[in-house]
């Protein structure tokens, strides 16, 4: 088991991605060193309470690399303190980042990478082809600070600023994956985007539909078409041999047993997040800047500690208690994901026990395309094997 501890080092970002769930981004809430140190001391002082074998020290924003000086100081302090205290995590830790990639090449970031190379996991988000990426991942314009949206013709995409750093990133972390987010507007570009990312040298593309209720009529049909097209391209182009796309997974789309398959999907509550104010959350999605319509779910702070009562609803969550009957009895239930934070935000009451079903039709479309993918792939592999066997037996016949 590993513990994921997230520092929300800033709520600022250079970009203003249209699908971003962080509704409260701002330039003011930057974590101070005192708060970061307070959080670290609180956690490391309680080794008996944080008993997981490993730890992932995760840094998130906004854009975390905007605070590279602070992050560098935090990581140095973590390494020193874990060692000084003979903390069991010194033998098993990672520093993890999800970045927009814009500052990746800068001297400070590169120096940090060099210092911590063997303990780093860095994911750069690139959404696919330029037209797909730039559709959503646009630069923040000054007027957005005042809540104004720029005109479409004034929007500036960030593709070129990110893609230039991909070769360096892949050179340093060849096994890293990228994370692609799908919202309603960019469904038509899914197939070309995944292939484009493969073409850039990214071997693993983690891709998911946003959990928010944004889906329009017909989106599922278009989505299924795109995934089917992608399935053909991956199989015909033999990309499956060395590349992966998280949309296609062999064991999804099956019914789930009420008792045997009753685990919660999400790790909220098992994780811990801390923000600039020194408040603790069950995951970043419960901080106020992530929530549209609910108050933050604060479980404590670095001074008074964690109120274990406020974690109890998360730790006892299971699939069926939070799902409606349709979801429980769904014939293609497995692999249908949810985000506990979005469930909470969309719920009718103050609860994490009401599963949002906004993604339902998209999951079903994915399952149909996924079935197509595996049926086609298995048939192809079977035929290849058959051909191979036939060739072998022909050779034998000739030998005789």
């Amino acid at each position, binding site marked *: 088991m590993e513990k994921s501890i997230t520092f929300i080092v800033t709520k600022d970002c250079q970009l203003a991605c249209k699908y971003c769930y962080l509704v409260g981004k701002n330039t003011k809430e930057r974590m101070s060193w005192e708060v970061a140190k307070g959080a670290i001391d609180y956690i490391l002082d309680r080794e008996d309470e944080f008993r997981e074998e490993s730890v992932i020290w995760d840094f998130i924003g906004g854009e975390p690399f905007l605070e590279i000086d602070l992050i560098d100081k935090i990581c*140095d302090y973590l*390494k*020193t303190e*874990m*060692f*000084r205290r003979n903390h069991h995590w*010194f*033998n*098993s*830790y990672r520093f993890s980042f999800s970045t927009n990639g814009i500052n990746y090449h800068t001297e400070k970031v590169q120096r940090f990478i060099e*210092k*911590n*190379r*063997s*303990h780093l996991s860095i994911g750069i988000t690139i959404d696919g082809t330029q037209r797909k990426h730039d559709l959503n991942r646009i630069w923040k314009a000054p007027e957005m600070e005042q809540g104004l949206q720029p005109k479409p013709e004034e929007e500036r995409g960030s593709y070129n600023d990110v893609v230039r750093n991909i070769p360096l990133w892949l050179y340093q972390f060849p096994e890293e994956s990228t994370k692609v987010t799908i919202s309603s507007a960019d469904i038509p570009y899914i197939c070309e985007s995944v292939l484009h990312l493969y073409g850039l040298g990214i071997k693993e593309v983690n891709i998911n539909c946003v959990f928010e209720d944004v889906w329009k009529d017909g989106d599922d049909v278009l989505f299924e078409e795109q995934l089917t097209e992608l399935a053909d391209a991956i199989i015909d182009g033999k990309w499956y041999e060395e590349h992966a796309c998280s949309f296609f997974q062999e064991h999804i789309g099956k019914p789930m047993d009420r008792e045997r398959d009753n685990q919660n999907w999400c790790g909220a509550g098992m994780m811990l997040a801390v923000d600039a104010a020194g408040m603790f959350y069950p995951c970043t999605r419960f901080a106020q800047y992530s929530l549209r319509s609910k108050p933050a779910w604060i479980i404590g702070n670095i001074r008074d500690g964690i109120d274990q009562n406020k974690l109890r609803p998360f730790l006892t969550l299971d699939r069926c208690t939070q799902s409606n009957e349709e979801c429980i009895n769904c014939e293609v239930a497995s692999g249908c994901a949810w985000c506990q934070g979005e469930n909470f935000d969309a719920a009718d009451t103050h609860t994490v026990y009401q599963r949002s079903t906004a993604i339902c039709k998209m999951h079903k479309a994915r399952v149909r395309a996924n079935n197509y993918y595996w049926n086609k792939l298995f048939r192809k592999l079977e035929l290849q094997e058959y051909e191979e066997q036939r060739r072998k037996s022909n050779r034998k016949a000739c030998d005789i």
Partner: protein
Amino acid sequence: MEIRKIVGQVTPEERAEIQALFERRNGLNELAKILSADNTDLYEKLIKDMGETGTKFQQWWDEKAKKYQWESYPHGNWEINFDTCEITLVATEA
């Protein structure tokens, strides 16, 4: 030309031992980059630990090589795959 050849496998428990030592050694090396000799106590602790961890690391390979009698080359070395527990002989052909 580099030769890579799987020459054996260790148990998951043995893998866990060497993985922990590997992680610790990486941690110590990266800590060494930021710790100065001015911080006397911690610096000495680090130097001592690096020595001990290095010794344990070598001991593990010596013991396992003796136990499993893996194939070797004069200028080759073994690598472990932490996912599969497999031992690979890596050598450069003259």
